């Protein structure tokens, strides 16, 4: 065979629709394959328990200060912004119910997921991207270690498990902030406030919130790891990986929010 002839293994550069559209669908396909590989590797030993626990610590414990501050402020601000409207109807006593429903159903999962997308997602994109361009992932592969299992599976498990826990924590901190605001304005007691909070919540609220957070956590993990693991073009690629991990995760979180809320409302 003539070695200078066109390589038969390389398809000619022809596009079905246009380069951008083809690239978009190709990316969707590779993400689908990435997710399939995650589920395949998830059940095949060896299991990287130590790394999973380390990642859970990174995602969970290291996010606590930021989540606490944001959740607390969200609770205070939402309560104080709701008061004037409710006061017009003499319904300030409904504040705990309104706040609890808003926080548990929407605010806590969304705020936590968006902060995690910014902090954890970008961190994963940058870390894996940097490992990719400095050949650290190749180094794992040649030392007979499965880098996908060690780096990707452990991180996706960590975000999927930790985001729901963080959401519960955010909801609690936000309600605490709300209570302080209500207590200072309406002199409501702690027991009274929280009994009103729990009275207004249903099982469906708690279930949908937990389900939503699990989906958000999985999304943040998959997007962060996908962007980092597939980054190219040196240090520029690392920056792009971190950036696209945040942007894509945030966009998908909003899309998922709309879809899940529509489905849950159909059961309400």
């Amino acid at each position: 065979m003539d070695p200078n002839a066109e390589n038969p293994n390389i398809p000619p550069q022809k596009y079905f629709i246009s380069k951008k559209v083809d690239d978009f669908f190709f990316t969707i396909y590779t993400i689908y394959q990435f997710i399939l590989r995650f589920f395949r590797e998830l059940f095949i030993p060896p299991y990287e328990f130590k790394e999973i626990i380390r990642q859970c610590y990174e995602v969970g414990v290291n996010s606590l200060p930021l989540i606490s501050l944001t959740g607390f402020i969200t609770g205070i601000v939402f309560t104080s912004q709701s008061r004037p409207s409710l006061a017009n109807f003499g319904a300030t006593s409904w504040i705990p119910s309104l706040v609890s429903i808003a926080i548990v159903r929407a605010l806590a999962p969304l705020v936590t997921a968006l902060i995690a997308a910014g902090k954890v997602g970008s961190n994963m994109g940058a870390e894996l991207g940097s490992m990719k361009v400095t050949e650290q992932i190749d180094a794992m592969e040649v030392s007979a270690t499965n880098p996908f299992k060690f780096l990707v599976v452990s991180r996706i498990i960590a975000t999927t498990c930790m985001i729901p826990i963080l959401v519960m924590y955010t909801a609690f901190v936000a309600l605490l902030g709300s209570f302080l605001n209500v207590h200072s304005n309406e002199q409501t007691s702690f027991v009274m406030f929280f009994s009103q909070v729990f009275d207004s919540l249903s099982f469906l609220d708690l279930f949908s919130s937990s389900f939503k957070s699990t989906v958000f956590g999985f999304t943040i993990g998959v997007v962060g790891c996908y962007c980092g693991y597939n980054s190219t073009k040196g240090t520029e690629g690392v920056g792009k990986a971190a950036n696209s991990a945040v942007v894509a995760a945030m966009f998908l979180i909003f899309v998922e929010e709309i879809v899940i809320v529509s489905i849950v409302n159909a059961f309400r």
Partner: protein
Amino acid sequence: MVKEQKAIDKNNAVISIRGLQKAFGNLHVLRGVDLDVYQGENLVVLGRSGTGKSVLIKIISGLLLPDEGEVNVLGQEIAELKNRELMELRLKVGFSFQNSALYDSMTVRQNLEFPLVRNSRGLRRSQINNEVESVLDAVGLLQTIEQMPSELSGGQRKRIGIARTLILRPEIMLYDEPTAGLDPITCIEINHLINEVQQKYKTTSIIITHDLTCAKETGDRIAMLLDGQFAIQGTFDEVFASDDLRVQSFYNYNFTQ
């Protein structure tokens, strides 16, 4: 240090490549490479940047798949191996990366333990420590054991990278540009280390470089990659006695700059 001539058994090829082709897009990097690497020899692959030297060893280690041709490593056809079989083969093939590829988030000790713990489950802590200290001692950097990669010099990182590869006791060592970016003294130290590793661990090595001093000091045989094929093979003196202008210009560029 003068390199001693070794007796190479030419009936015992541990790597055998026939008609290897590899392209990236429209760029044909390897255009029908044929190569045999024999048990116990240090083969130096010379060539200009972008000629596919690194691609060649990435194919040998299974990091890249060939487009066409046969790549047989330790009796196994790389392209036909299942994932599990490839993992097992990789235990016997060490790869020292151009930029060392040390894990940034781990200390030197953790870097060295990483492949060992994952591939020799059931080892006791004392055995792991002994192994780590033994290979670190072999590369002369025992004192860096608790340091982070960011605290090491370029030469030290190279040595640690080689140590991490050696910890699995590979039969074949692949060195990608071992002296790139190092000062002349450190280059000499790395060249000596490559020879010491070969003698101590009885490895077969492929050394990818465009540094002729490295090639002369470490290579039992030189193969020159030009235009996607091996243009000439032989000892250092045989290769550079060639009339091929491309070989001569490579030599002149290295030794007259």
